[in-house]
């Protein structure tokens, strides 16, 4: 056990925590028993305070692969393995992750706890949609297996439940068959918000779709965007020179971001300049090419610690979803952000497909994610945005959250009381709790 200074990806908030590590099955229960209360923690890639607590149980050294059925595409592993390691194993065998978020540096346990989504949500749903079964150690030390068929309540409350039902030890999930490790990519520039919304609809059958959107642009180019679409390239679609090794892994290269940028570097001028360059780099209306999966899914992973670009005070990522009919809400929020001049380099817009779940974030509609450097007055502004999100029937993503009020969570998630009941059943004394779960009154 060691006192460590920890924070998640947003570098806000920062706290001292006693960190426990384990590698072996026989250690888990003992560590849990000795702990007063804790939250399971993987690679710390959620953004806010979800995996922060006075004590943490870190799963990173519990990272063995258990089985990989290369015929049926079923993968089973311990919860601390990260997605980048899984890709190295499955891609050369012709399989891919069924769902992946924008970073590959998250653990499988974290993928379940946040029930992560990717650019294919409208087609394939979120990560939990592909789980065959999983095993947890509950707060009382007992081991329980759950799946969509057995102990359904535990399964539902664990998917997107931010680690509060127990410590996930083992996950078995289905993979996606691929012929090549490449993506056939199409990028289309949209002049404004109406056009990007129309394009999302036009390309709704595309497997992967996401848009980068300029939140600071006003006037007729309000909401200008670049829509990025992708399909797994088939063997015949590859250029000749790539056909020799169609399942090749991308080379490992990354640029470290060695220090925190001073906070003043990010201001509305530099963000506007970045957006101008980012939008302007696509000269043509439409670009079609074949790229490795790495730059397509994980463009930011190439810059290790890019979060330091927001300075020492850190940042919060704000991600909400609004129902499809609430386009006006999206416009209103974008206007408020651009008026405030507090934008981020990258704001990401995506259309979610249908999803009914207990506590997972995705539901049908528009989801927008953007970063805000922590500044005076930011949280008041975000409280105002929360009200707009709620007014239009939307909600916020707990994995990104570091500051939402409990009422906002309650208003956004209609089955919250049921979720709380299940937590209290499996974790009755609040042995498993985080700074976030206390703040959101889930465990207090």
């Amino acid at each position, binding site marked *: 056990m*060691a*006192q460590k200074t920890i924070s998640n990806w947003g570098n806000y908030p920062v706290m001292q925590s006693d960190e426990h590590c384990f590698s*072996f099955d026989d250690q888990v229960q003992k560590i849990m028993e000795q702990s007063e209360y804790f939250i399971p923690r993987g690679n710390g890639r959620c953004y806010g305070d979800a995996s922060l607590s006075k004590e943490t149980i870190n799963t990173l050294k519990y990272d*063995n692969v258990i089985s990989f059925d290369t015929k049926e595409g079923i993968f089973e592993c311990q919860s601390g393995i990260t997605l980048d390691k899984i890709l190295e194993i499955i891609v050369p065998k012709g399989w891919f992750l069924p769902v992946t978020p924008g970073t590959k540096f998250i653990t499988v346990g974290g993928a379940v706890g946040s029930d992560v989504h990717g650019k294919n949500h409208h087609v394939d749903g979120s990560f939990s949609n592909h789980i065959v079964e999983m095993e947890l150690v509950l707060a009382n030390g007992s081991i329980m297996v759950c799946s969509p068929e057995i102990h359904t309540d535990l399964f539902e409350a664990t998917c997107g439940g931010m680690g509060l039902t127990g410590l996930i030890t083992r996950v078995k999930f289905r993979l996606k068959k691929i012929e090549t490790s490449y993506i056939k990519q199409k990028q289309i520039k949209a002049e404004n918000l109406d056009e990007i919304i129309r394009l999302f609809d036009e390309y709704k059958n595309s497997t992967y779709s996401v848009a980068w959107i300029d939140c600071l642009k006003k006037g007729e180019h309000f909401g200008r965007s670049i829509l990025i679409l992708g399909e797994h390239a088939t063997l015949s679609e590859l250029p000749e020179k790539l056909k020799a090794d169609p399942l090749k892994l991308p080379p490992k290269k990354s640029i470290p971001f060695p220090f925190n940028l001073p906070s003043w570097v990010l201001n509305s001028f530099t963000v506007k300049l970045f957006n101008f360059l980012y939008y302007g780099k696509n000269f043509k209306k439409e670009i079609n090419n074949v790229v490795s999966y790495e730059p397509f899914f994980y463009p930011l992973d190439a810059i290790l610690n890019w979060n330091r670009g927001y300075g020492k005070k850190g940042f919060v990522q704000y991600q909400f979803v609004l129902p499809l009919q609430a386009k006006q809400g999206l416009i209103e929020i974008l206007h408020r952000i651009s008026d405030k001049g507090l934008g981020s380099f990258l704001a990401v817009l995506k259309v979610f497909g249908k999803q009914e779940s207990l506590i997972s974030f995705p539901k049908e509609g528009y989801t927008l994610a953007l970063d805000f450097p922590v500044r005076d007055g930011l949280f008041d502004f975000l409280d105002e945005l929360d009200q707009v999100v709620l007014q239009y029937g939307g909600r916020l993503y707990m994995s990104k959250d570091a500051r939402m009020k409990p009422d906002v969570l309650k208003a956004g998630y209609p089955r919250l009381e049921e979720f709380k009941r299940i937590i209290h059943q499996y974790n009755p004394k609040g042995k498993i709790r985080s700074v976030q779960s206390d703040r959101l009154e889930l465990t207090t």
Partner: protein
Amino acid sequence: MATVLLLGATSDMAVAMARTMAAKGYDIQLAARNSDRLKPLQGDITVRYGVNCTAHEFDATAFATHHDFYYSLTPKPDIVICVFGYMSDNDAACKNWDEASKMINSNYTGAVSILNIVGEDFAERKSGTIVGISSVAGVRGRQSNYIYGSAKAGFTAYLSGLRNKMYHCGVHVVSVLPGFVDTKMTAGLNLPPLLTANTQQVADTVEKAIRKKQNIVYVKWFWKWIMTIIKNIPENVFKKKKL
């Protein structure tokens, strides 16, 4: 393909080394006191890298069992990496002989016992590589850590002598002095991040040292210079320091 035997395979460093060597195509033999704990890693290596991987019971301090343990292995390994070791509080060990002897036996006596047996076999086969994970703590005894340090110093000297002898039989010996490494053994210590290596860096260093037949390797380059300085402080000055 050649086979690598890892002694003390439940340690974090050994896990990284086992995977790194398996990724290069080596078959792996994992050996540790609690072989049940090796089963998940054994499965992991088999699934990830498609190499043969076996798990074996081995207690570094049960010297009498070492001969039978080694001769029960089939095939015989081509590379042996001695990773096991044990560190506990120095002051406690000064007052408690069981603790002190545990440190001496794990870090020195046990290693000598098993590597004598391995060395004999390799010398007869006129091939093979032996890697010993020693420690920078063995370079000079410090008040905070001299029981562990002196055992590692013994081990470092042993490896040096073994390398000298084995050279003439075509066997290579590597001494590794990792410096601070982020592992279970050091979990309670507040290590300076810049000076601390992760287990993958150790594994990569070991793999390279085997491939390039290096003799003495540090994991982070500056440790060599830090230790050179520490070694050269006059004893009259050194003894007054609180190190």
